[in-house]
């Protein structure tokens, strides 16, 4: 079968813990060879879903098909996957070599074959010389690489990663996520990763599944999720976003606290209360009264300027009865050019193409 076929298919997965509904009828297809990320806040059911795919929890109802085989009722030990946990879960009393060989020894392979395979995996994760060491002698990032090697050793059809980077420090996390992604693409192993870190999800995933309260809110590529969020929750959870309360005036115009702006949604009936969503980096702020052509430009004042390194986060209060607030990301160079003092009058452009109406 070619890459891109459905490799894992979930249909109607439900799971309750007592009265708590952890998962409400989840259906989903994971394509062969892709890296899919389950993203959501804690308690959204993403880890439960992963554990159900692994057979470590049992769904109340629903079916799981992996590579054409119905595995819904199979115990974990009869399924085909490798798994990496946040805690590494390396066996502390076994050497790195024995940890990686742990799943191979059981398959009655020849000793030389095992040695060759372990060496190959050690090379794959860049720790060729560590075979004789114990897990306690390695750094967190190194341990997680070994855990990855151990999971991949029996060449499973599916790789499951349960918050694999959450226990690492910030630098190590960024380095390892690039490595895992490169390794996954090289091996072409279908991978499901669970994380609550949106940056991790955006940078690693082929597709992201955004989950909330046991439901899937949206499935899409990182760009789709970021640029075309399907629900207010997705818009809010992935990146920062401004929310403006508005009333439809008809004909694609909306009233935001007395200011009239254009949004390409002529379908909404006049008088309907809506919420406008706009990313901070899409807001254009000018201190010299300039107007971006073809955009909604309104007047406002600077409330505060927060320096964040690459850019400044500028808090704005729009003029007009509503005095609605929004945040804009302004490049450092523009701020340095002057005029960005609290209280200064500005013109604020809200590009119609960047504004979304959700919910």
């Amino acid at each position, binding site marked *: 079968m070619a890459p891109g076929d459905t490799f894992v298919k979930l249909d109607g997965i439900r799971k309750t813990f007592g009265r708590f509904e952890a998962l409400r009828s989840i259906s989903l297809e994971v394509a062969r060879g892709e890296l899919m990320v389950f993203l959501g806040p804690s308690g959204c059911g993403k880890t439960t879903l992963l554990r159900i795919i692994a057979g470590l929890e049992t769904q109340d109802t629903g079916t799981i098909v992996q590579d054409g085989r119905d595995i819904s*009722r199979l115990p974990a030990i009869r399924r085909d996957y490798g798994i990496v946990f946040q805690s590494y879960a390396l066996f502390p009393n076994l050497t790195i070599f024995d940890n990686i060989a742990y799943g191979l020894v059981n398959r009655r392979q020849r000793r030389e074959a095992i040695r060759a395979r372990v060496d190959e995996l050690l090379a794959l994760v860049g720790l060729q010389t560590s075979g004789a060491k114990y897990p306690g002698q390695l750094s967190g990032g190194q341990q997680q690489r070994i855990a990855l090697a151990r999971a991949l050793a029996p060449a499973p059809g599916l790789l499951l990663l349960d918050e694999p980077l959450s226990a690492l420090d910030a630098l190590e996390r960024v380095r390892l996520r690039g490595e895992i992604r490169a390794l996954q693409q090289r091996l072409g192993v279908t991978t499901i990763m669970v994380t609550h870190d949106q940056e991790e999800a955006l940078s690693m995933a082929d597709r992201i599944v955004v989950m909330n309260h046991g439901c899937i809110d949206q499935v899409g590529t990182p760009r789709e999720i970021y640029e075309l969020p399907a629900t207010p929750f997705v818009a809010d959870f992935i990146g920062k976003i401004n929310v403006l309360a508005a009333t439809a005036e008809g004909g694609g115009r909306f009233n935001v606290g007395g200011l009239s702006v254009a949004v390409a949604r002529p379908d909404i009936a006049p008088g309907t209360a809506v919420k406008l969503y706009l990313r901070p980096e899409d807001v254009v702020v000018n201190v010299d009264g300039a107007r971006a052509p073809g955009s909604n430009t309104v007047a406002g004042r600077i409330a505060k300027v927060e320096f964040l390194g690459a850019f400044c986060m500028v808090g704005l209060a729009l003029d007009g009865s509503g005095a609605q607030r929004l945040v804009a990301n302004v490049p450092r160079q523009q701020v340095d050019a002057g005029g960005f003092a609290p209280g200064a009058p500005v013109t604020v452009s809200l590009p119609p193409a960047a504004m979304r109406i959700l919910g």
Partner: protein
Amino acid sequence: MATPAAVFASPAAAATVRPQVHWQDRLAQGLLLAGCLALALFLLAPLAAILVKSVEDRNGAFVGLLQFRDYFATPALSRSIWNTLWVALVVTAITVPLAFIYAYALTRSRMPGRTVFRVLALTPILAPSLLPAISFIQWFGNQGLLKVLLGGASVYGPIGIVISSVYATFPHALMIVLTALLLSDGRLYEAAESLRTPTWRKFFTITLPGAKYGLVSAAMVVFSYTVSDFGIPKLIGGQFNMLAVDVYKQVVGQQNFNKGAVVGLVLLLPVLVAFIVDWAMQGRLQAQFSARAVPYVPKPSRWFDAAMFAFCLVVTLLLLAVLGMAVWTSLIKFWPYDLSLSFRHYTFGLIDGGVFGAYVNSLKMAFATGLIGTMIVFAIAYLLEKTRGMAATKAAVRMLAAIPMGVPGMVLGLGYILFFNAPGNPLNFLYGTLTILVISTVVHYYTSSHLTAVTALKALDAEFESVSASLKVPFYKTFHRVTVPVCLPAILDIGRYLFVNAMVTISAVVFLYGPHTRLASIAVLDLDDAGDIGPAAAMATLIVVSSTLVCVLYALVTRVLLARTQAWRQPGAAP
């Protein structure tokens, strides 16, 4: 709400998924169920037998609470309740403060010899409770060395019981209070210091509140130990009646099992109450412990350290004087007329006297208890903590594992007699065998062993079993390749604990031994009864020596083991 291609509406009301159960899971579940049933059979059934017996007459007819009414109408019997309670309270009031100051000295001062003091203070654990009784008879008895100190009062009675019990309970209280003090967070003291808090205020606002639960827990343990103990009042109690001895008298002396059952239940009550209080406190003690606590490091202070040193020295010397007197008694020819040293109490008194076999029995029993008990305790704790499913059985096992601590040995032993000695019981053949002695001892000391195992298992990564399953490795393989090696220190600790207690125990087994399975501790009792205090002291000394050897062996093995496995036990070594 957008509906991207991958999201499907699914048909509702699908059938509930019934997972296939792998034979390995079935095996684990079967073993856990077997463990649960064994605990029920060897713990619950005997206790139930006591309840049944207490509402029957000698012929087995139901008489309701008649036996109880009889009991409370007999002043000679019901006076024991008051006797037992006030003696236990006095012992608690003496032991706990002593243990607290001692523990305080060990943890909060920089006095020299802290390790030595700590080890010596724990020595009473190695001795049967009969040993302090023998020793105090030698010190303060009718022909005692220091009899004058009592000013005419007799050591046979409450005085002897109290001082012997203080000796026996001191290390138990010390260990609990020590743990509570060690768990305290050094940062609290640093914060207090930065606020210029005076020392006395630090003591009352940080140290004491921090040790509060530990102190209550220690008090409960001392109280129930004293209430439950049979050896001390039997040996040194004289005409002073205590509940534990009453049970023995009713059952062994008068063969009145029904009245024995009633006294057993009366004895059970205070211990059960103390146990429940202690259980609640243990929970809070653990909740109080924060994983990030920084250990407190005391600063040297000349006068304080000197005072603490003096206190510990006096206490330790007193403890050693008790042990020393027993050992000395076993080595002198004929108290108090011929004080020259010889081994005749060992050779003539024990070997030629035909009681040396009891010592051999004790060794056999203790080794079997240590070995089999450890395996059973650890296996059940493992199945409890590391397998999936069986929620109801697990809840039952957890409860069963907690109960033995709240059951005095005399009550457990009485239950065993009533249950296993019943003519209709198919397990009747167990009665009087070494097997039933081992089983009763494992059950008697189950709770602490179980908690040690559970603590060690909980410290392991929760996902080892999941990883094994994903690698298609059977659970029992991971159990023996990873779980057991990593938990080995705890496993050895359980083995030592069971061995030492099997050597010194007397309460449960005093009802259960047969002609060929008399134990060393029972021999001490019998020898003392016969007036052979020299051989009795010799036997008690043998018990202490054996327990000590096993503890030294344990320390050596643990040290070698830790040294060998240091590579993986000490993280942070340069990669």
